[in-house]
């Protein structure tokens, strides 16, 4: 029996169309638009000025506060402007626009493909360098990695969990990374282990990626303390708490963090970025983005510079097809539909999915028939139908009591609901309102 998390979960059609496509390098765009807020926490502060010439890898915005991340230029060229531009949500935020001129990198960055396995840095220095390189969680939540690696005093961590689950349909960027850069990845994991001071690391991979499992299993004997675990295919296994439960059978308490049960979870993409930052001196300026869709000519995995317009990626893979009804930033379960496609790829963009009309259109909403399917699929053991009702009636205190803040917005409830009720929409609204109430209470 393969391991998995015990409570809830769904199995959406996998549609991993691009799993066979090797990572392709997207040609340099003419200009990049780099938002100063690509991570959770405080936005970074621009340190370049209009008209300045910069090299790829140069820092262009410095982190402000502990929970924040540095931002580096992904290209060489001239700063055209620093202005408010639309991001993927349609709202405007400050972005640094750079006109691309050539492809000149900072001399300190090692861009050769040579594998560097020896770890020379001490744990603390690794964390410092991660912060310097602006590394954030690449799974999509974009939480600054150096914050996660700095274990709060009094807490202990004994095992590092590496998330190679990629449970979202369509997405294959992590999958390709595991196949194509396994040694780099494992070195990155060793680096993370050293930074955390743990002896053990477990890589969790869903069983629909057998080639990645085999490849990594072949190589792990060369690395101390790392093991590979195949998991049963079930959404949302890639969620931190579910993965911890599946792999080491520990339950993160409500409102707690993984470190409360002695573990830290990092994504494979993050581990690879850590390898590049520490061993190659390369900050986080590019990432692998899956561009996929059923009617696309050739679904691809593209190594893309941060700040490239999403439009460029779609054009490169053959352009928008007529049947496209919705373009999604991220996976189809948790990703967000785009209202504009001329918006930049950011550190958290794992995929661009083109959905057909019938895949994307919401069906007519009916009344709740009390089938309790949403309750049985909720991986957090919540009652989505009830949460929606109390939020509609604005009973926020009741919603808090019903643990609404434990919801991680996986969308399993909305996915399974036979009456097509917008359960997650209302739960998100409730989370925002309850979060506000909690913050106000803390201030008092």
């Amino acid at each position, binding site marked *: 029996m393969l391991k998995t998390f015990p409570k809830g979960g769904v199995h959406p059609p996998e549609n991993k169309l691009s799993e066979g496509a090797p990572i392709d390098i997207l040609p340099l765009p003419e200009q990049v638009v780099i938002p100063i807020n690509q991570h959770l926490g405080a936005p970074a502060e621009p340190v370049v000025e209009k008209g300045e010439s910069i090299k790829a890898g140069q820092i262009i915005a410095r982190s402000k506060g502990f929970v924040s991340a540095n931002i580096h230029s992904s290209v060489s060229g001239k700063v055209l402007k620093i202005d408010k531009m639309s991001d993927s949500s349609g709202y405007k935020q400050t972005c640094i626009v750079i006109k691309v001129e050539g492809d000149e990198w900072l001399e300190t960055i090692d861009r050769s493909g040579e594998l560097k396995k020896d770890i020379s840095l001490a744990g603390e220095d690794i964390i410092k360098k991660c912060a310097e390189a602006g590394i954030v969680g690449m799974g999509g939540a974009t939480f600054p990695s150096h914050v996660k690696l700095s274990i709060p005093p009094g807490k202990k961590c004994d095992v590092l969990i590496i998330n190679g689950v990629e449970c979202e349909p369509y997405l294959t960027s992590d999958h390709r990374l595991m196949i194509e850069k396994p040694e780099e990845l494992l070195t990155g994991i060793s680096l993370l282990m050293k930074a955390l001071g743990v002896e053990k690391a477990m890589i969790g991979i869903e069983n629909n990626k057998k080639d990645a499992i085999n490849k990594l299993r072949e190589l792990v004997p060369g690395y101390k303390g790392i093991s590979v675990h195949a998991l049963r295919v079930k959404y949302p296994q890639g969620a931190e708490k579910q993965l911890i439960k599946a792999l080491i059978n520990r339950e993160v308490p409500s409102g707690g963090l993984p470190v409360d049960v002695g573990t830290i979870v990092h994504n494979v993409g993050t581990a690879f970025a850590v390898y590049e930052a520490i061993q190659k001196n390369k900050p986080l300026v590019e990432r692998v983005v899956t561009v996929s869709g059923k009617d696309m000519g050739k679904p691809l995995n593209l190594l893309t510079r941060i700040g490239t317009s999403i439009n460029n990626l779609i054009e490169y893979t053959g352009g928008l097809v007529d049947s496209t009804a919705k373009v999604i930033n991220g996976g189809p379960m948790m990703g*967000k539909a785009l209202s504009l496609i001329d918006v930049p790829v950011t550190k958290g963009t794992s995929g661009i999915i083109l959905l057909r009309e019938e895949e994307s259109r919401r069906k007519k909403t009916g009344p709740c028939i009390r089938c309790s399917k949403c309750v049985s699929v909720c991986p957090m053991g919540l009652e989505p139908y009830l949460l929606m009702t109390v939020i509609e009636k604005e009973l926020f205190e009741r919603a808090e009591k019903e643990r609404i803040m434990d919801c991680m917005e996986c969308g399993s409830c909305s996915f399974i609901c036979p009456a097509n009720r917008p359960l997650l929409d*209302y739960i998100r609204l409730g989370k925002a309102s309850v979060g506000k109430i909690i913050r106000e209470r803390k201030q008092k």
Partner: protein
Amino acid sequence: MSSVVLITIISLSLLGIIAALILYFVAQKFKVYEDPRIDKVEEALPGANCGGCGFAGCRNFAEAIVKSETFEGLNCPVGGAETMARVAKILGREAPEVEPRVAVVRCNGTPENRKRTSYYDGATNCTIVHNLYGGETGCPYGCLGLGECVEACDFDAMYMDNKTGLPVVIDDKCVACGACVKACPRNIIELRKKAKKDRKIYVSCVNQDKGGPARKACKVACIGCGKCEKVCDYDAITIENNLAFIDSDKCKLCRKCVSECPTGAILELNFPPRKTAEKKEPEKAEA
């Protein structure tokens, strides 16, 4: 047989009397004095419990107003001057003059003015859309058109205009309780001073983008050019974040700014038509 009935009646009566005495003394002992004026004031209030005064309901407002020495910061916008005068009479005070106000929707993004850029088919709730993304049009500031304000109105003073997709305030019914102002996640609705014959001049836009992007998103957007500010003789207009704002307390309704606005973002409503029609009269958003 009859003695059983007699004993029952006597014992039950005794029990009743004893219980009544206990209750009486307890009530005397734990009596809480309440100002009888609170009840009277509450009766004088409209009893809508709308929260427009800032209190949870009419009772709370009555308690506060009786307790307070002055009327400072206390006003029932629903009842207006008449109600406040009645309350003042009960309390033996003078009611201060409070100018009546009315809600105004500061967005004129009709389908003709504001092109649709995406299609939203999720939950019909303005706050949900606002938290999710910029909205169905290119303007991330304007009305989302899902009618949360209309739902919030307890006085049937608002409705959604199907043609324009925008909410409309019925001036005669609006009591300026401010429920719609609180309900709107985009802060589009404002309470403005009510003028004679419901005449009003206001900037019907809340877009804070620079001129170019604002105009691109909506034909009648305020571009923050500052022409209106210059032409105003009463210092009623201020420009902040690329957006003009007309202070209704200072505005004398002279209409100079209206003809000056290059995009037609400033609306004049309920005025008689101008004699020399240099400019086409802006479309009326009000019924």
